[in-house]
């Protein structure tokens, strides 16, 4: 089948998509966007978290056809060429990246959390951060530095215009 959707603001059209393929497979293997990761491919680890029409989803659980005509946002779209998004900067500065395989999914989940709390004019509490990231597994860090990074990003983004 042919799949047409918008990814990171660009319209993509791909042919010969097999009906059994996931959005994750299409992003990684047919669109040249391997940033979203394939750690479990069963919706347990969150490493493939992407925005679908602005809502974070596990791309491995979305059938490719379900993305038809919709807007997808991946880690590759968080910042422009040569730039870093405040969440990306915070992860680097806080030491929240070791092997980095969970990082793309965590960045999207964090971006979503920080945006939502900023829209409400506040910074997320620790318990709220833990709840928001509970679907993203990390095996390297023990999560402490990820929490540091989210707090840092929330502080910095709170100062920006909404």
């Amino acid at each position, binding site marked *: 089948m042919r799949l047409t959707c918008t990814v990171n603001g660009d319209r993509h059209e791909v042919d010969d998509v*097999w009906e*059994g393929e996931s959005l994750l497979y299409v992003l*990684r*293997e047919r669109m*040249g*966007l*391997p*940033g*979203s*990761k*394939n*750690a*479990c*491919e*069963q919706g*347990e*680890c969150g*490493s493939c978290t992407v925005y679908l029409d602005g809502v974070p989803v596990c791309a491995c659980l979305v059938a490719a056809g379900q993305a038809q005509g919709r807007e997808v946002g*991946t*880690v*590759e779209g*968080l*910042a422009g060429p040569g730039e*870093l998004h405040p969440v*990306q900067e915070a*992860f*680097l*500065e806080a*030491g929240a*990246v*070791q*092997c*980095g*395989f*969970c*990082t*793309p999914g965590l*960045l999207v989940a964090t971006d979503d959390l920080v945006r939502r709390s900023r829209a409400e004019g506040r910074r997320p509490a620790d*318990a709220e*951060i*833990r*709840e928001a*990231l*509970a*679907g*993203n*597994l*990390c*095996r*390297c*860090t*023990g*999560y*402490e*530095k*990820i*929490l540091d990074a989210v707090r840092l990003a929330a502080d910095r983004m709170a100062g920006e215009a909404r």
Partner: protein
Amino acid sequence: MSTPTRTPAGAPSSVGGPGGRIGDDAQRPDGVLKVRGEFAYASDLWMDDMLWGVTLRSPHPYARIRSVDVGPALAVPGVHAVLTSDDVPGEKVYGLELADQPVLALDVVRYQGEPVALVAADHPDTARRAAARIVVDYDVWEPVTDARAALGHPTWNQVHDAPAAVTELSRESAHLHPHGNLVRHLKVRKGDPEPTADVVVVGEYEVGMQDQAFLGPESGLAVPGEDGGVDLYVATQWLHVDQRQICSALAMPPEKVRLTLAGVGGAFGGREDLSMHVHACLLALHTGKPVKMSYNREESFFGHVHRHPATMRYEHGATRDGDLVYVKAEIFLDGGAYASSTPAVVGNAGTMGLGPYVVPNVHVDCYGAYTNNPPCGAMRGFGSVQTAFAYEAQMDALAAELGMDPVELRCRNAMELGSETPTGQVVDSPAPVAELLRRLVAMPLPPEPATGDDVDLRHMPGGVSNTTHGEGVRRGVGYAVAYKNVAFSEGFDDYSTARVRLEVVGGEAVATVHTAAAEVGQGLVTVEQQIARTELGVDAVVVHPKDTAVGSAGSSSASRQTYVTGGAVKAACEAVRGRVLERARGLVGRPAGDLRLDGGKVVSDLEGVALPLADVLGDDAVEETVEWRHRPTQALDPDTGQGFAHVQYAFSAHRAVVDVDTELGLVKVVEMACTQDVGKAINPQAVVGQIQGGTAQGLGLAVMEEILVRDGRVQNPSFTDYLIPTVLDMPPMRIEVLEYADPHAPYGLRGVGEAPNISSGPAVLAAIRQATGLPLRRVPVRPEHLTGT
């Protein structure tokens, strides 16, 4: 040679800038690529015209193969090759320490998931569907699934409340390998063989099978070379030991089997053994096309070795004052179907299985057995994790018997500088075991759990499942301490190779560091840059892609790379620096004895010399390659297990605070505190990251992580059923890092990664025991162990 469209990215230069020297929180050179989603992990590699390879695996833990019919798979459109053991041109078995594991199944399969055949096709699902059409006729045998039974030893009775019995394995098929079911038996004997003591405690313990659960699946891309050889881009821990085994299987010389490290999504020991390496090379050479293989999560559970399950019996004897008199221990490690690194794991469990305590009389027997369970091998902590659960439980039981404080008992018997280990080795660098514990005790405890209207469910065992508002919840606090050998032991020729080049590019001094040391997430690439910046006084340091074009760096295992490859990079930098300063002396025309490199210049404070490196080097590059070794270790005496077997020890201690819902058996870890001596923190932020991550993996084994194996079959090969800690399971941590230099090590550093993984779990168990009063002889602790249901 063509290279993949998405190549393993070399680390760019100069990230972190002048701040990134020894002792600084330098940032990772690969960090920007990783947060932008542009870092090329092994599973991201891609080439035009590449094929996908998949593996057909045995559904049976033990069976003879009567026949294999690949015809139906070959008939599937899109399939390019179907291969079996007949297609392996060289040695058909491989292994890290013993070559006993078939590349593809020969006449017998010995574990569920053993690779039987390979398929290459133009789409991964085509390959999977074709593999399902291969017809294998199995004669299914009864599996051997108990390590002690496999060796003909009696079972014990405390762990499972069962009567002791010897299982007779009389049938012929119960001998899994021609040399029997014993992989290694290590005896440690010291002091009085028949010691007596005022107070004796005996305990039997069991540790379940833990999975490394790295997130990046086993993956790689094999590209056939124009010379008839092959280039393999793969996620691994030791390129050169892979290369040796691949060459053997392919019957090719090393120059025809070239490996490059692809991005590695975590390792933790699970990438020491081969997985898809030879398979992808076979398919690529057979089809003449690039072949990618990437396991899904279920296959990953079958595609790598796990941590050995252990059953252990300990007897501790002490004086009434609390001085250890003797320890007797019997340790059985289930190695599964093939040897992997079981011999070395037995070595660690046997030599360090009594903990960092002074024990005058020792009698240890440690066994590694073959069974038809999944093969077990390396995982972070490597034999020391299992035994720590036992010896620390014993120390608590002994303290209770003596009416002593458990920390005081540990401090009273703690190793220190100059102590002798159970294997007769004198500890010749700082061993601040007691200080680590006392510092933990001095740390403030978290506030008592809230009650009544103040309860926040998110802080309760069971969380927002709303299972308790504090009723039946009891708090416990527990301590544990660990030590672990750093680097390879028992006389292994343990070295690393570093090639360092210094040159001026576009007016800027640039150093290039080339090693084959695997960056698996731990941050070795950062350390390599920090060392080169420090030793050569430059800001720009390029980390060359890791490959087999340079000599071996040894394994990214055993907490050894910062020590050994760090030592090699330091030595190569010193060699480069010596040549550059010699040139500078020639230019200056004076002795200039205090010349050094700093800020891209040759500097002499005494004589006011500051020569830009451009003036010294011109267009020349100065390059040196150095093979560097730590001081040699010795094999253990085969009868007594005595000897200078380990080059360095790492020490850490944990305090765990838990809340236990004693009615439902739910555990909430409230806080973890850790103290660790690292000798010298080369990168303090990364050191803390290692401690936090190691703590999490130890906590996971304590309360949730186990591969459940029933009759040789894995029951839970998924992240749905094999649980690792989430951010909700991990508590806040307090960490103190001590830096007592080891005079034998580069910069005085100690390996960091494994020790905190060892002390964390036993501290959690001690805390749960304190909260519940239960003996808890088995990990992971499950709710039914706490409720008795």
